């Protein structure tokens, strides 16, 4: 049996501009056609032809980028927003955790707010009385329950909001990203409660950016993109597909940004601060390529990378070193080397040329990395130093940690029963 049925739902938001507002007000006053005057001048489609079925007792995840319509879907199911087209049917009592403590009044005490909020969420006074101690204990607010809510920290505020909402004891629980703000000890507690819900065969609709949790707790996942359902199904598969899509988008963004090194020659001020040296030897262009020679900016850890530098030396130089450095987003040096450290002896350089550094396998973990390139003398005197001017992304479905992925494998004796990662899931490079 389905607990939630969303049948070809579209939701269109209306935007009114300030000028339009004035005109409608005028025409509403003059012509008296208030409702016709309230025609919007811009429409935003938040959901388009969305159909979903969530079975009773299922934990259903919804993922997607910001603005993909996740929250709107939740609001439509909760009944807060009406679908412009289509139909939503829910079976049983619905409680929506869209914003915790949304109805709190800051001036009155936590105790009074529990009652008012509870009533707002559909509890009777007697039910609240029965659950009062449990709510307070769960929120860990025993000592502050009679203080006005405005004196609460944001953590206390959130805990109280969650404690009330979860105690409404709904048949369908809608959760929108509310756990993102919790501290390290409260989030597991909330997840425990959600687990408890699942065990009691209640239906949960879970909207989150925390893909790990989604993959872990959900039975089924829907991926929304631009207001449409892109895919529905097995959490692991959908999360992977979503990640791949995100990686592709990042690649495109990087593609755009990659045009920027050309602008270094323009030497805008910010850039100059990241580049120094008298340019007796100049690095004109830097490109990052795959081992096959295709320019790219998103790499898998197992891929190699070729760094090409176009060099120009207007006059003959006899003392020179070429170097590269890779830094992660925290500024930690992941690897750095130069021709001098590797005992290359400079003899002479003049005119234009090319230096290529070929890394056979990147072996870094997921993240954004910055590339330094430099030409300098052996004593460190810089000819041309580019600091953090180039960046690339390492992306894969594996979530190992640290700085580098050391080449490794696992072996198990025969009494340990463990199945290897399924083909096409873990360990598969995304690009």
């Amino acid at each position, binding site marked *: 049996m389905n607990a939630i049925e969303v049948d070809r739902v579209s939701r269109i*938001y*209306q935007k*009114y501009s300030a000028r339009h*507002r004035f005109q*409608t*007000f005028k025409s*509403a006053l003059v012509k008296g056609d*208030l*409702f016709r005057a*309230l025609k919007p001048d811009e429409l935003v489609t938040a959901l388009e032809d969305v159909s979903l079925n969530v079975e009773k007792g299922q934990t259903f995840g919804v993922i997607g980028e910001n603005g993909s319509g996740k929250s709107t879907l939740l*609001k439509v199911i*909760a*009944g*807060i*927003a*009406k679908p412009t087209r289509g139909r939503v049917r829910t079976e049983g009592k*619905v409680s*929506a955790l*869209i*914003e915790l403590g*949304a*109805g709190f*009044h800051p*001036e*009155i005490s936590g105790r*009074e707010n529990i*009652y*008012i909020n509870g*009533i*707002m*969420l559909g509890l*009777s*006074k007697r039910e609240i009385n029965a659950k009062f101690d449990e709510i307070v204990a769960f929120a860990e607010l025993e000592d502050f329950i009679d203080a*006005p809510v405005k004196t609460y920290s944001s953590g206390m505020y959130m805990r109280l909001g969650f404690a009330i909402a979860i105690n409404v004891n709904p048949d369908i629980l809608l959760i929108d990203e509310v756990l993102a703000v919790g501290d390290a000890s409260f989030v597991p507690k909330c997840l425990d409660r959600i687990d408890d819900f699942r065990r009691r065969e209640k239906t949960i609709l879970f909207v989150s950016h925390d893909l790990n949790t989604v993959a872990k707790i959900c039975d089924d996942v829907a991926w929304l993109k631009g207001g449409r359902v892109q895919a529905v199904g097995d959490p692991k598969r959908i999360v992977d597909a979503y990640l791949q899509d995100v990686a592709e988008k990042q690649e495109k963004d990087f593609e755009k940004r990659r045009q920027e090194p050309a602008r270094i020659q323009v030497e805008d001020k910010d850039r100059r601060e990241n580049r120094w040296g008298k340019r007796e030897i100049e690095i004109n262009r830097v490109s990052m390529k795959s081992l096959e020679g295709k320019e790219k900016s998103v790499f898998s850890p197992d891929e190699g990378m070729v760094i090409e530098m176009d060099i120009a030396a207007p006059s003959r130089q006899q003392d020179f070193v070429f170097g590269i450095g890779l830094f992660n987003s925290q500024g930690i040096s992941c690897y750095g080397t130069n021709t001098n450290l590797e005992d290359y002896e400079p003899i002479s350089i003049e005119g234009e040329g090319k230096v290529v550094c070929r890394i056979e396998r990147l072996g870094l973990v997921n993240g954004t990395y910055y590339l330094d390139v430099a030409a300098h003398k052996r004593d460190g005197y810089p000819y041309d130093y580019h600091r953090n001017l180039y960046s690339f992304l390492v992306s894969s479905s594996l979530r190992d940690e640290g700085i580098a992925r050391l080449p490794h494998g696992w072996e198990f004796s025969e009494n340990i029963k463990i199945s290897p990662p399924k083909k096409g899931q873990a360990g598969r490079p995304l690009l």
Partner: protein
Amino acid sequence: MARFFHNLKELYKFRILIQNLVVRELKARYRGTVLGFLWSFFNPLLLMIVYTVVFGFIIRPRDPAFDQSPWLYALFLFCGILPWVWFSSSSLESANVLITHGNLIKKILFPAEILPVVTVTSNFVHFSFGLPILLLFILIFGKGYTAYVFLLPLVILVQYVFTLGFSLLIASLTVHFRDIKDILSNLLTFWFFATPIVYPMSFETIQGSSLLRTLLNVNPMTHIMQGYQNCLFFGSMLRWKRLGVTFLVALILFFIGAMVFNRLRDSFPEEV
């Protein structure tokens, strides 16, 4: 029409919530003040003192109804100001109420019409805090009571329906046309003086001009205020026909207010 009655029934269903929100409103309003709920009384009292000094002592009441006595005039003023404050604060607060409680409408499945109802009702509670004090003052300084004082609840009912209708209309329209807030505060000042509150209807300049009389008579608040003045100050019979017509107008306004509110309801979550 069916939807209208359906909504009325819904409102009844939410009475516990309304009751709790009114209590919350009252508690929150004076939380932290020394005088607490006494402000419900002091606010109209201070307003009355200002008008008494200006119109009672400086300009002096010329109407024979007051026997040249500034004190009687003060009582007369109080009979009008107390209910007027109920009406004007209700409508001013209603203009804001959907916007300030936007997160309720946006984040919780919450029947928005409750908010203006709570506003009007909590202002009514302030009014009823002030009422016993007014009754006491009339007993001490006034001409005494007649049995007509028992008709007071009828006048209050007419005003309640009228205020609620006006508030529903203002609350829903302000969401789309924020200018209404500023227009309203000016309109209320004008409206205050266009209602026989600081002067009695029997004032010679009014009785002498048929234009003024007509203008005042088409103002529903005139008949509501006269209702209070008749019951409390003059101790005379209500003017049934006029009050009856006003009640009809109040009902129509309430119906229009509820209808407009319903039509605009779906746009609230996006616009507040």
